[in-house]
């Protein structure tokens, strides 16, 4: 008994005496940032001096942007103790529905109206599948893993079915502006440094992603709803006992993720101006892994927007580096697997250490 007391006392003192630096370094975001910096230095030294340089960086950002739209709500869903496998299916369904609508209505409607219509249809697909996921998990108490695996197949199957083996590409020309328009282009002429740094060439999706990141950060850290997301993931029953509407948190999480996946599909449809049902592959595992590498726990209650952003950066940096260093791209997945394994092992190790401390 006396032993136990001493142990408790030392923990308290240790936490109190911890230096600012040590606490800062214990933060996942800071650790990850350091890893990214070291990784960049190594890749630059190892034969790709332009890696994330002024020419590469804007291109890199526009490559990451569509995934970024999805990783933010996915991280919020994970923090709330849930996750969603169906995002790839949703994104592809949205792509195919856009292609299908264009092929039916092209020339019969005003172009602008048609674009608004296809965007609305794409987003509705995300809204509907998100609602099905959310209601199944909250009302019917279905398991989120199996539910979203099922809706993934349903959405993907519907996409393939509607496409019917064809990839449609008769789009309204200006639809491509959704992904390709460069809002800072004119500004670049006035301020040459923007042009030199290629910032003026950043396309729209980078700005959508920036808005989603900002909104995600704002909601999660600065609103009651954000704290309710953390509370729900931390202890669903405890949160409910204290008046948190945990089912509302979960439902909104699934709907937001679904609509973000649809938005990702819209961006890809605009970028490719074609609508194959296999436009996106592996989106679900990419964004879940990115959020987990960024510190989100599958058990809920932990994670951050910044962590998810850095985690996704890391995954795309590995891909970019593989290409720029001329390494066989076939090994990309192997490296991603190693990174994810390390992140999860590190998590388990630090939690075990915290547990034995007490």
């Amino acid at each position: 008994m006396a032993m136990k007391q001493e142990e408790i006392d030392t923990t308290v003192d240790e936490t109190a005496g911890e230096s600012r630096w040590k606490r800062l370094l214990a933060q996942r975001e800071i650790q990850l940032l350091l890893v990214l910096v070291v990784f960049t230095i190594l890749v630059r030294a190892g034969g790709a001096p332009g890696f994330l340089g002024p020419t590469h960086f804007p291109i890199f950002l526009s490559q990451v942007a569509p995934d970024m739209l999805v990783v933010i709500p996915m991280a919020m869903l994970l923090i709330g103790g849930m996750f969603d496998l169906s995002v790839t299916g949703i994104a592809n369904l949205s792509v195919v529905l856009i292609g299908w609508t264009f092929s039916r209505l092209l020339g019969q409607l005003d172009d602008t109206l048609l674009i608004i219509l296809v965007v609305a249809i794409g987003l509705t697909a995300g809204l509907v599948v998100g609602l099905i996921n959310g209601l199944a998990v909250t009302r019917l108490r279905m398991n989120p893993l199996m539910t979203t695996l099922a809706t993934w197949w349903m959405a993907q199957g519907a996409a393939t079915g509607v496409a019917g083996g064809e990839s449609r590409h008769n789009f309204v020309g200006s639809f491509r502006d959704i992904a390709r328009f460069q809002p800072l282009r004119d500004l670049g002429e006035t301020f040459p440094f923007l042009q030199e740094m290629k910032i003026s060439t950043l396309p729209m999706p980078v700005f959508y992603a920036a808005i989603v990141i900002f909104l995600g950060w704002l909601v999660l850290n600065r609103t009651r709803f954000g704290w309710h997301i953390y509370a729900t993931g931390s202890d669903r029953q405890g949160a409910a006992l204290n008046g948190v509407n945990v089912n509302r948190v979960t439902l909104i999480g699934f709907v937001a993720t679904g609509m973000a996946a649809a938005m990702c599909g819209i961006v890809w449809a605009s970028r490719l101006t074609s609508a194959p049902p296999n436009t996106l592959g592996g989106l679900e595992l990419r964004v879940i892994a990115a959020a987990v590498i960024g510190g989100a726990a599958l058990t809920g209650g932990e994670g951050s927007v910044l962590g998810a952003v850095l985690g996704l950066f890391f995954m795309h940096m590995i891909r970019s580096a593989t290409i720029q260093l001329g390494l066989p791209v076939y090994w990309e997945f192997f490296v991603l697997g190693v990174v994810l394994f390390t992140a999860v092992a590190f998590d388990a190790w630090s939690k075990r250490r915290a547990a034995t401390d007490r």
Partner: protein
Amino acid sequence: MEQSKVSLQNTSENARSETPLLRARNVSKAFGTVQALSDAEIDVYRGEIVALVGDNGAGKSTLIKVLSGAHRPDAGEIVVRGQPATIHNPNDAFDQGIATVYQDLALLPTRDVVANLYVGRELSKNGILDRRRMTEEANRVVRQLKTNLPSVHTRVRHLSGGQRQAIAIARVVHFGAEILLLDEPTAALGVKEAHEMLTLIEHLKEQDKGIIVVSHNLAHVFRICDRITVLRHGRTVGTLIKDETDSTEVVRMITGADLL
């Protein structure tokens, strides 16, 4: 025995002229064929600690759950501050200023002390969380508890059992609870932590709360309480004034040995 019960009750009632904060009379509750409570009664005054003791299965938890709104009694009367009260669920109890701190606490392990104090009742201004005010208030609450925490931004996961319990109690007190029902507050704690918890409970008494403590530990009971209500087989067999009794008598009433 019946005689002694009545006289004891009279003594306790004569000692007090004011209205009790909480009074429960003739409470019965059956689960199927099991009569968990029959004619249970208890009361607690402002600035008083009442211990609720009894053997396993005597009905202590059931009585606490009736008072906290988790169970609906089959019969009986609950009077809060002199007014008959209907308590159908924990929210009704909370509205009456009755709060229960259970052993499993309902805290959020991955969140800090501030978030735990305010969960479900976060302060915000124009839709944006007022984190500064919550942190200030949390610091004030923690200081009042006289519990030493490294920081209000420590995650509850990293707190000791006693500190967690203190946070759970602070939460309900901060939101206006006057009648506290504490279920085995020292059971999971080590010696020093249990000691700190008892000091905290005494401190709450000084703040004029009415406190009912369920405990198996008679040493703890005798250290802090003013009166002891003994349940046996779902019935209140007596309420003793601490200064007029000793643990032998309490044990006898708990086990029913005096009937032999």
